[in-house]
C-alpha cells in the first residue's frame, strides 16, 4: 500500500514539476520513453509515460515499457525509494532486491529527473 502511495505521490510531484520546474522540463525535453516501476510479481506498479514534454501515467505493473525498475517486494521498494539513496539502491541490487529490465540508462535518466525535482 505504502509503495503504491509513494508512486502516486511521485507521479504528482513530477507532473507538477513538468509545469513549474524549468530544469525538469529541460531534462525531459522531447524524449519519448515509458518507464515502469513495479514489484517482481507484477501486482503493484506504475507506468510513467514521457511523450515530448508531456507526462502521463497508468497504474499497475503489467505494462510494456522501455525500461523497468523491478523490486523484489513492496516493502524493499518503499524503503529504498523513500531513502532516495544511491547507496541503498546499489545494496538492494546486490542483494537481489532490485533489478533493471531494459536499459539501465533510462532508469538513471528517470532518477536523475527525480533528484532535480527533490532538490
Amino acid at each position, binding site marked *: 500500500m505504502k509503495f503504491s502511495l509513494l508512486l502516486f505521490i511521485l507521479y504528482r510531484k513530477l507532473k507538477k514539476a513538468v509545469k513549474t520546474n524549468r530544469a525538469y522540463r*529541460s531534462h525531459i*525535453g*522531447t*524524449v*519519448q520513453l515509458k518507464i515502469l516501476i513495479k514489484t517482481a510479481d507484477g501486482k503493484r506498479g506504475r507506468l510513467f509515460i514521457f511523450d*515530448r514534454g508531456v507526462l502521463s501515467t497508468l497504474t499497475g505493473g503489467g505494462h510494456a515499457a522501455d525500461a523497468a525498475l523491478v523490486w523484489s517486494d513492496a516493502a524493499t521498494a518503499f524503503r529504498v525509494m523513500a531513502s532516495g539513496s*544511491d*547507496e541503498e539502491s*546499489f*545494496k538492494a*541490487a*546486490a*542483494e*537481489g532486491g*532490485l*533489478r*533493471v*529490465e*531494459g*536499459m*539501465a*540508462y*533510462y*532508469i*538513471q*535518466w528517470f532518477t536523475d529527473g527525480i533528484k532535480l525535482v527533490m532538490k
Partner: protein
Amino acid sequence: MADIKAGHLVARYLKEVEKIDMVFGISGGHIESILDGFTEYSIRTIDVRHEQAAAMMAHAYSVYTGRPGVCFLTAGPGFTNGLTGIANAYLDNVPLVVLCGRHPLRDDLKGALQEMNQIDMVKPITKWAATCYDARRIPEYMAIAFRNATAGRPGPVFLELPPDILNITIPEESAPMPIKVARNYAVVPADEELEAAAEIINGAKKPLFLGGTGVGFSACSDRLGEFVEKTGIPFMLLNYGRGELPDTHPLSIWDCGNVGLLVTLGQADVIVAAGLRFNWLFMSGDVIPGGAKVVRIDIDPREIDRNRRADAGLVGDVGSVLGRLMPLVEKKDHGEWVRTLRAASHAFIDSELKARVAPSDPIHPIRLVAKIQEVVGEDALYVIDGGDTSYFGQVGLFTREKAGVIGSASGLLGCLGTGIPFGIAAKLARPDKPVVVLNGDGSFGFNSMEFDTMVRHNIPVVVVVNNDCAWGMIKHSQEMSIGGDRLQCSELGIRRYDLMVEGLGGHGEFVTKDEEIVPALKRALESGKPACVNVMTDPSVTSPATPLFYQSLKME
C-alpha cells in the same frame, strides 16, 4: 667511395637503426625514391586504397607491436587524406611516424603541382613537424622524428621530404646513420606522493583501479598483476590498456560492462587511475563521486589534476610507478566488495545478460556478439568500430590477449572507419591469431575498399557487419532529440556488403537468422580469406552509449 640515392636514406635508417620491417601508404611521384629505398632495403610495404587507412594501420601497428608505426604519404591529396589518421593518433597519444612528400622547394610560389603549406596544416595535430632541407641530414631528421614520437607521452610526428633532397645522389659517408641509444631513464614520482598514495590505497574499503592507454604502452602486465593481486583491488582496463591483464582475470570487472563501471564508480571510495584521461567518457571527471579519494598515475604531469584534483599524483611510467608503490601497499582482500559490485552491476544489465543467451528474431546485436565470442573465443584479437556497435562489442567480447579488444572508434576522435585498418594491422602484427572486426554498417563504408588490400596482401581478417541499416547511434539520438518522424541523414538500406567483398576476391556470408550466425562465422574463419559476414540485426535496439552521447550535447 660509394654513393647513395638520398631518398634511399629513409629506408636505410628505418631498417638499420629502428629495425622497422613494415610501412603503410600509397605511391606518388614525389616520394618515388623513398619507395625505391623500400625495395633496396627489403622493407615490406602495405599499399592501401586510401591514405587515411595507411595512417590508421600504422597507428594500430604501434598499438599491437609496442613500436612506432610508419606511414608514407605523397604530397597534396595524399597528405590531406592522411590527416584524419594523424589527428586520431594525436588524440590517442600514439607514436606514429608520418613521412610525406611535398612539392619541390625549387618551385615554391610557381604554382607547382600539389603546392601547399602542409606543415602549418599538420602542426596542431602532431607532437613535432618539420621539413628536411639537406639530403645529408635525412638520417638525423629521422632520428629526431622517432625520438619525438616516443619520448614522454607518445604522439604522431611528421617529416616532410622535398624531391630536391630525395632525388639527388650523395656520397654515403656524408649521411652517416646515427647510433640509437637505448637510455634507461625514468621519471620518478616524489616520495611523499608515493606515501600518500599508499596510505589512501591501504585505507580503502571499496577501491577501484582504472587503467588506460598508458598501461598498454608501459607494457607492465607483470607489475600490474602483482599490484592488483597484492592490494586485492578490482580493475577495469580501457582503451589500449585493455588486455594488459586478461579480461578473464578474477579481479577484472569487464563482465560488469560500462554500465557496471558507472554504477560501481558511484560507490567507490578510492579510485586509482593509471595512464587514463578523465575525458568526456568520464563526463570530464563528473562521474567520480565528490567524496572519493583519487590517486592518479600518469607520464604527463599535466594530466594529474586534470578535470579532478588528485589526492595523490604519481608522475611516471605506469609500470615503474607501480613497482615503486609495491613495497608500500599492504596485502588486502576486497572479496566482499568485489562480489557486491558484481551482483549490483549484473542487476542493472540483467536484460542485456539475458539477451546474450536467448535466440532472437530479429537478431539482437548483443546476441550476435555473444555468438562471435562463442565461435572465435578468448585467444583472438577483436576490433570494434561503430556507434552502438562499439558498445555491444566492447562489453560482450573478452580475450586473454594484450590489446585483445580495441574499440577503434571509441577514442577521443570517435573516428568511424578505423576498424578495418586496425584489423589489418592486428593480423599483420600477430598473424597467428584470428582477427575479427565488428563493424557498424555505416562505419564499414569508410574503409571497406581495404578488402582489396587484404586480398592483395593475403591478410585474412573476418569483418562482421552489425547491419541495422542505419547510422544507428545517430538515428536513435535523433529519435530522442528531434523525433523519429524527422530523422535526417541517419538511415541506410539493406545492402549486400558480403557480395561486394566477394566481388573483391574475399569470402562473403549473409545472415538473417539466429541459427545461421555460428555456421556462417565458422565458414568465414575456415575460408582462410578476408571475409565479410553481413548480419542483419534489430534496427530498434539502441545502446546505453547513445543516450549518454545525446545528453553530452544537450545545452538547455
